[in-house]
């Protein structure tokens, strides 16, 4: 489920950043970089562009800070920019998955090498599943199902109605479930229910 920073603290930082205080920009970046990175990564996969896209999210966010009216949480507002930047970033080149051996990062693990290898493989397979979804469905599924945002927050972040988001998540879930059960990694976790 999405981790949240204390809204009052963030609101004060946003106000200070609005008046151009550099330390507030930095603090906002540090508070939100992990979440933005996760959303962008889930949207574009293990691409070498992830860091560039994360930077673009913050640059666009900070530049348009005067337009942030505080009607939603800052994290939701930034998430909306992250989704938009990721979708725009995906539109330019065709998405290509980098083999994880050469990828710049590996999945977060506890240190057990077997677990690390398994998680690495799992992340690669999850990317392979998500990449099959159309971007709008992928965004809705990532935000609601994987990142734990509510339907209303997801709708605000993808700029669509709650009803439209429900349809996208429903379709994404059906497609993913069908494919996941054919994937040995996920089928094993569901209980070896691999189907022909």
């Amino acid at each position: 489920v999405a981790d949240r920073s204390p809204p009052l603290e963030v609101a004060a930082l946003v106000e200070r950043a609005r008046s151009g205080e550099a330390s507030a920009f930095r603090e906002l970046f540090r508070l939100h970089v992990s979440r933005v990175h996760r959303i962008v990564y889930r949207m574009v996969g293990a691409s070498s562009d992830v860091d560039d896209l994360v930077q673009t999210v913050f640059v666009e966010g900070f530049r348009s800070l005067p337009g942030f009216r505080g009607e939603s949480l800052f994290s939701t507002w930034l998430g909306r920019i992250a989704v938009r930047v990721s979708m725009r970033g995906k539109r330019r080149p065709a998405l290509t998955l980098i083999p994880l051996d050469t990828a710049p990062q590996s999945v977060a693990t506890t240190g057990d090498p077997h677990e690390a290898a398994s998680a690495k493989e799992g992340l690669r397979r999850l990317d392979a599943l998500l990449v099959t979804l159309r971007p709008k469905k992928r965004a809705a599924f990532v935000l609601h199902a994987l990142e734990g945002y509510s339907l209303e927050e997801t709708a605000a972040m993808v700029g669509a109605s709650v009803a439209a988001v429900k349809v996208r998540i429903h379709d994404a879930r059906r497609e993913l479930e069908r494919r996941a059960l054919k994937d040995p990694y996920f089928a094993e976790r569901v209980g070896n229910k691999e189907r022909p």
Partner: protein
Amino acid sequence: MTCREVQDAFVDLQDGRLDAASELRVHAHLESCAHCREHAANWKALLPAMRALVPPPPTPMRARRMELEIERRIAEPVSLAARPRRRWPLYGVPLAVAAAAALVLWLLPRKHGPTVVVAVPPPVVAAPPAFAVLTSTDKPAGERLAAGSRVVLASGRNATLELATLASLALVGPAELTLAGDDQHVTVALEEGRLEAKVAHRQPGQTFVVAFPQGRVEVRGTRFVVMAKPVDSWVRVDEGRVAVFDHDGGEWSVGAGETHEFAPPPAPIFPAVPAPRHVCSSPAVSCGPLTQAVRVAIRGGAYERAESLIEPALRPRPNCRPLVCRNELGYLRAEALRESGRLDEAVAAYKMLDHRDAPSTTRQNALYAAAQLERRLGNLAAARADFDRAVAAAPGGALREEAMLGAMEAAERAGDHVGALAAARRYLDTFPKGIGAAQARRIVASERGNAP
């Protein structure tokens, strides 16, 4: 409850977001529907499995690099190619109206509106609606000014303009300005003089512009000072961030503590005779795709390719507008040289960014990088000088503390006790609890011990 409604609720059910009644209805449906029960069981296993596959957050080093890159990009002028597509094209309408108003004002500065002359017999000013109230030693009670009014201030005189749109302008003579606009879009055309502005935060769609011969400043809520002169005009920002546009279309973002100096205009500001038109014959450069391609090349270790992409774009472009990404390309060129091990050339490339057209944070980043390389190469005196220049380039910049520490360490390693002591004292004055405070105190203490 239908099967679809139940399946749509799987995630909320697992996250505990359903109210008690809904949860009861979902469970009741699941008990009676084998199809939904099977899907629910699948997602009960799949969702935690998928959520557990979390890509690791950026390492502190990567996050720091991102942070610096973000600060650099914010300080860079906005590249048209890199601008996000606006979802609502109607945003352009108020901006176009404001731009048109500014253009008219620019072209007809001396035929626009009544004139208020301070310290000479004042003319009768057009009646309200009041747009601003002018207060000066001659007019202590204040004088109401309408939009279109012109204010001329004699040498040595000061005046204050309180605008109805929550802005306060302090004017130092000799100065001339014209007020234009309305509640939503305010334009102050400053032909000459010093103006200190304190502008309340603008709502989206509202604009506040100070236009002057060598450029203009657009703000949304900030404090800044404009000095308009025939040459060497400048803008200093005390609070917030402003967009600065120079006469040839270049755009800059200037933040608190930073000063932007304008290059001399190539032609008269309010030309009586149109300036001759020059044709730009250099090939067009699209900054967004180019910088992206360079970054990909550097990341992939293709440094020669990166240079071959950058070099043509940085060639002189007579009669052309300067590339908005020229500083970014210069920085990337230096990075490519550094990554490829050509450290001396990298140092020179970084130092080439230390010019007044480059944003102060870019200058600081470049000088800091050059100083680090010089320290690695053993050129401690040069390193110290560049660390000092990095501090001076952006006094409020992110690398200020690191640059001060670098100067102190370089002086100490070079055996320059006087320089090290001065650098240590400066560091302690600025960062008494900084990460290098202990080291600085040690230098100060050892010098005290050496004193006769």
